[in-house]
């Protein structure tokens, strides 16, 4: 068991350009079933052994793809996400950076009445170690196990996965929810999935300053948490009012500050690591190992 991804995941690649084909190859290397890709006008041909389709609907008909990964450039990313949702894909993982907020507002409005789960955009994707990787993360740093892991950040995810793996703490599913202000699966929803996943024994929540997703996740865990959790917040030292790369990391008023997030987790009984290096120890303590 796991969330979002498993051995039956059948992936369609939307946008088989330089980045898309590079990562498609890496996903296949990992054992992920990459069953097709869309390339309008090239339907019926193949590229690197991957069957190509003109539209997502055709690809789904022919391949039974249940997941897609979106690499198309930002100006076309909304269209790609909506096409995948329209075709009834269960899980869409959008890697694309720089999607306009207005586009994401439309996409998330459509998601409200769809059965699709969207992870991202502007995230590294998701991985269920040992089963399937649908994303751009370096697989070497992940290992199968019981720690579910949600993060808004890319490289920090790899860093922490690496720390966990080195500490002998494998992961059930790691979800990079993406760093944009409007995303398909915000941290609280991703935490909920892991909380309800029998294969997940403990949850690591890696947040950032900005927004109130961490506060809401803490609130959710306080009310519904079934398993121990550990948190980390990046950006505790950031001065207020400065943007740090992610548009999301704008501190306004009291909401979204590192203090507010740390307090929320502490009130939910969730220990907060001061540095990524503390996370494995806290997880072990939480699991009483």
């Amino acid at each position, binding site marked *: 068991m796991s969330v979002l991804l498993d051995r039956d995941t059948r992936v369609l690649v939307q946008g088989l350009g330089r980045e898309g084909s590079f*990562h498609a190859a890496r996903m296949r290397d990992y054992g992920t079933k990459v069953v097709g890709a869309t390339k309008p006008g090239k339907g019926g041909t193949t590229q690197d052994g991957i069957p190509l389709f003109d539209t997502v609907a055709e690809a789904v008909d022919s391949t039974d793809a249940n997941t897609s990964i979106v690499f198309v450039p930002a100006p076309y990313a909304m269209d790609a996400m909506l096409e995948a949702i329209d075709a009834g894909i269960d899980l869409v993982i959008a890697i694309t950076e720089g999607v306009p*907020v207005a586009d994401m507002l439309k996409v998330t409005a459509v998601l409200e009445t769809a059965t699709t789960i969207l992870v991202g955009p502007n995230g590294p994707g998701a991985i269920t170690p040992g089963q399937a990787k649908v994303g751009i993360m*370096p697989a070497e740093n992940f290992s199968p196990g019981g720690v579910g892991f949600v993060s808004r950040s890319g*490289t920090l995810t790899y860093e922490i996965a690496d720390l966990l793996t080195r500490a002998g703490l494998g992961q059930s599913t790691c979800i990079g929810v993406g760093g944009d202000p409007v995303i398909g699966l915000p941290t609280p929803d991703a935490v909920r999935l892991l909380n309800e996943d029998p294969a997940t024994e403990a949850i690591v929540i890696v947040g950032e300053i900005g927004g109130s997703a961490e506060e809401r996740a803490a609130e959710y865990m306080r009310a519904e948490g079934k398993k121990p959790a550990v948190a980390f917040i990046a950006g*505790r030292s950031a001065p207020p009012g*400065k943007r740090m*790369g992610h548009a999301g990391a704008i501190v306004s008023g009291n909401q979204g500050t590192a203090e507010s997030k740390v307090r929320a987790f502490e009130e939910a009984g969730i220990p907060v690591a001061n*540095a990524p290096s503390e996370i494995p120890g806290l997880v072990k303590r939480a699991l009483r190992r």
Partner: protein
Amino acid sequence: MKLHEFQAKQLLARAGIPIPDGRMATTADEAEAAARAIGAPVAVKAQVHVGGRGKAGGIKVAKSPAEARDAAKAILGMEIKGLRVEKVYVERAAQVDRELYLGVTLDRDRRRPVVMLSTVGGMDIEEVAEANPEKIARGWPSPLLGLLPFEARSLVFAAGVSEKQRDPVADIARRLYSVYVETDASLAEINPLFVQKDGSVLAGDAKLDIDDNALFRQPELAKLKEVSKDEETEEKARALGFSYVQLDGDVGIIGNGAGLVMATLDAVRDAGGKAANFLDVGGGAKEEVVRSALEIVLANPRVRSVLINIFGGITRGDEVARGVLDVVRTHPPRVPLVIRLSGTEAEAGRRLLAGAPLGSRETMDDAAAEAVRLATQPVRA
């Protein structure tokens, strides 16, 4: 990307929102001529990309063209929060009876735009938001339907707008919302929204921030982009695909990935130091990238050590190490470097770095501590 008041007001006027008659001026002469053309009294207003210009003396009311000239002379060249004023907007003074607040921005939690309306507008709206949030009426229109008439109506009732201003304010709210959508704004704000003595409603000030990610489809607005002196470095970094924010410490920071860089900043602070900047090189960390990033970081004279924290992901750690070595050998930096490699092939990378003129550490915490230590040493000759 921020627009100036006069640019924002032109966009509001185009959408049918009433604004006072106004002209741009870059000299005192022009300001005087503008005041004469418009008819005094006028307000002379600094056009700078920061808030709080009113409190900083950047807005003066002039009763005659000559006074407008003096006001412009005083304001032009003044510094507001470190930004030099190079333009003023001369605008007919409104007959202000009351000041409302009207704004549209993103509500991240609801994943919807939020429209805010208050009858206690003006300079202290942030304090109102803090202390009396119930004085700000809020509505969350569907991004698929826009701000519907009934929603605008509900807002004016909820905010307690007086009967005479209800229809015009609801109308302005819908028009401002259209501007927000059509310009791909992240913030569209009229504060204050004047109620004049004759009961008419007029945009007193206007603020419009555009989503940088949407500039590709807003060519007209993209042309309005201005880079002020203190933003030049950030702009240069952006052109290279980096994300750079100047801070006030002395440990230069380079890393890949916003979250990792933020965590690195935190580690520096936890080690007792202060970061000089935030610099995220984004994906990859090849030679050229490292060199450009170092150039940007070292352009800051306060930097006394540099910490490079790279997670070798798809890019291998040994490749990164080779890139860094090349830079260090061909362009030796003026301050000590500490590098921390992790992830794929990090050990191989660290082996390559052994003996090079830089500190290499295995963990983020150790590397931060070393960079902080080096920053406190005397600068090399």
